[in-house]
């Protein structure tokens, strides 16, 4: 089965079995290994990518369902010269990551969150991040990072 989609600004064609998940296409076919798999029940959010701008758990979508859509993975967030996106920079400045495994999914969710709720307060950010598990940070610095990233995205 051939599926055409746009990934990080480039048009790509993925030739894969019909039961291929979007996350498998991203990791195994396109070798974009920044998108991670942390569970098998669509609970952890480590595989979160943007599909047409909305945060989606790519372990819970078939590749075929993403046909013709625009996908952004963590590798496509920074500027072409490597300068980090304001949300990535905020995660670094606020120490919003430790082991880094949940981080790509967390950043993708955060970018979507701030686009939908630019004025979210700490409580709303915590509610909105329900779908992303982190075992290292206790979330405090992630919440701080999302607030700072939101402000930087508006600027």
């Amino acid at each position, binding site marked *: 089965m051939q599926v055409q989609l746009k990934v990080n600004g480039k048009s790509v064609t993925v030739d894969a079995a019909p039961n291929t998940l979007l996350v498998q296409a991203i*990791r195994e076919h396109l070798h974009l290994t920044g998108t991670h798999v*942390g569970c098998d029940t669509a*609970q*952890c959010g480590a595989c979160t990518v943007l599909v047409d701008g909305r945060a989606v758990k790519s372990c819970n979508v078939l590749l075929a369902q993403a046909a013709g859509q625009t996908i952004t993975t963590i590798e496509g967030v920074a500027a072409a010269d490597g300068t980090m996106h304001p949300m990535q920079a905020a995660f*670094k400045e606020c120490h919003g990551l430790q082991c*880094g495994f949940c981080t*790509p999914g967390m950043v993708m969710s955060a970018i979507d969150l701030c686009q939908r709720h630019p004025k979210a307060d700490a409580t709303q950010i*915590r509610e909105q991040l329900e779908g992303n598990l982190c*075992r290292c940070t206790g979330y405090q610095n992630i919440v701080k990072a999302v607030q700072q990233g939101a402000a930087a995205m508006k600027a």
Partner: protein
Amino acid sequence: MGASDFAKLPHIGESLLRKEDYRFLTGAGQYTDDIVLSNMQHAVFVRSPHAHALVRSVNKAAALKAPGVVGIFDGQDVAADKIGGLPCGWLITDTSGQPMKEPPHPILAQGKVRYVGDHVAMVVADTLENAKNAAELVEVDYEPLPAVVDVRDTQKPGATQLHEAAPNNHCYKWAIGDKGAVDAAFQNAAHVTKLDLVNNRLAPNPMEPRAAIANYNRAGDDYTLYVANQNPHVERLLMTAFVMGLPEHKVRVIAPDVGGGFGAKIYLYAEDVCLTWASKKLNCAIKWTCDRSEAFLSDAHGRDHVSHAELAMDKDGKFLALRVHTDANLGAYLSTFATAVPTILYATLLAGQYATPQVYVEVDAWFTNTAPVDAYRGAGRPEATYLLERIVSRAAWETGLTQDEIRRRNFITQFPYQTPVALQYDTGDFHACLEKSRELADMAGYDKRKAASKAKGLLRGVGYSSYIEACGIAPSNIAGALGARAGLFECGEVRVHPTGSVTVFTGSHSHGQGHETTFAQVVASRLGMDPSQVDIVHGDTGRVPFGMGTYGSRSISVGGAAIMRALDKIEAKAKKIAAHLMEASDADVEFANGEFTVKGTDKKVTFGQVALTAYGPHNYPLDKLEPGLNETAFYDPVNFTFPGGTYICEVEVQPDTGVVRIDRFTAVDDFGTIINPMIVEGQVHGGLAQGIGQALMEHCIYDRTTGQLVTGSFMDYTMPRADDMPEFRLGHVVTPCTTNPLGTKGCGEAGAIGSPPAVINAVLDALAPLGVKDLDMPATPHRVWQAIAAAK
């Protein structure tokens, strides 16, 4: 260099942003599952669906014919190749004087399975999907046996028996302290507080599931094992010397980026050995990545103690003696450090922060039909702290003292302090931690907040916990005397390059702790350079001399100290080179801020000039010194380190629903010297989340009859999410450790150790007006509601 000089160096105490973050934030991290090798096959394990069963036969015929299958291995293949069982790294001697019972721990079942998820066979195929499909075709003929999962059941007469080598499912009885003196103290007590408690079983759940790739290279007859692991040299040592009988130099273990560990990635697991063994048999690379469901079944779990404690006091609330009995669940087999957790890492901490003259602890360790239990963040010390801090608060309530006052009356104030349970605390200031925590928590305003809660129909309570832990594991001679089968030193190699930049090789392993930044800060501060000029290499037995890895909050205090010793050697040699260049005597050369100077003159050379000279030794004392500037040190600590602190938790409980909300949580810790406050606070946040998770949400539950794991996914096991956690208030008291050159004590586990009793004490304080006196973790709404209903 000593600890007081170290603390004054530039960059020490600065919150430098992390050097490792860029790769993690841009998707460039390389975790084991991200690695793809040529000719790489995929492995899937056939696991037991039964908690306890005889394995009558394993029929591989149909599976072997399935598409893409290149090999299937079972217990008979293991036996035929004489691959040994997994070793336990810590020998505990029973009170009878006999060694603990150490039944075989095969890498694939030898006629019997002993827990749900136990390894029966490994299927290797060209794709993961083909391997999974073929695994479905492996026919295993099981004869189910009765299962036992609870320590209170496994010791009953007539209970099902797991191992021939462990009669009555008993591994050992172990004790510490003077029983006679404790019993005598109880006879003279004015008051005795008693408490029964359960420390709930937990699943560590690092976000990256375990993964490994074994690659055999026929040309060199050697192996490379990529594995998500916290201590690659230990993994290699155990696998080569104790299981496979391979020469160590033929096995390279690489732990690349590792997505959290929390203890679960310390151990040598059956999967790692199966992959390595089969990679030679099939002459290929083999990858295995654990599903989360598999992780719940097969990662070593944590905690699972059932204890009875008694505290004797005089009429003034001074502790006279503590008497404890604990039943510890070790699971079906002995995991790598399982036996040390409920003994050395637990009972020795039961003096806590208190000058209790006598403590006696007796531990019985048992086998059950559950996943092996081993060290999980804190490892024994959370169990000790939970028991002690619960009984201390209960004692306060029974005697009419406040939770803070009973602690004040009993704190140790003189250091060094020899406890009655083996440890000698070098330093601390427990009163300062308590008072600072009360101040940050605004205890002066507590009564107002309690009244406000009451007006809303809510019950407010406050809970204290004053913890101490033993970190910086460990002086090898003491550990050896206590049964450790390995040393617990650390190594550090400092390689100065000709142009003056530095690469450091450390046996510590970073899987979230930020060593690439903190260790670079240490080195850059010592050598007077920018931290960007220092890179840290870890996690590769092919590059690092030899290291014992990261666990027990040991990295900075042991691994950092090894680097400090290597830097001492670098500085000493560099001074000699500088003396030669400046035509001065060695003794007159001083080194500060990256410059060598001669006392009383304006002569100076930079560290960079010395480095260049070391590698271009044209004008060089070749008769006295070797060229080059590359030094290695192994550091074996002289004592444990003793982080401590006081945590105060304030909760609101809804009496109608049992819902507990943490209103504020204050943590004041004494970690000694702090190198990077940002990273240290991050470690505390994470530890607190795991401790609060244990107290309110997390519980790994096996069905008590069938032995099936009930909480086998993130749908069932309640992981803390962002909206479950409060905003933490942190503070520090600093009494530098006196026994290592940095003055550091370690900060990785404190949060998980100190927080559970603070939360439960707060809930009990809130529920006291309703008559609730006891509650086991996790304090879920259901459990709290039941406790309220039962008290009515």
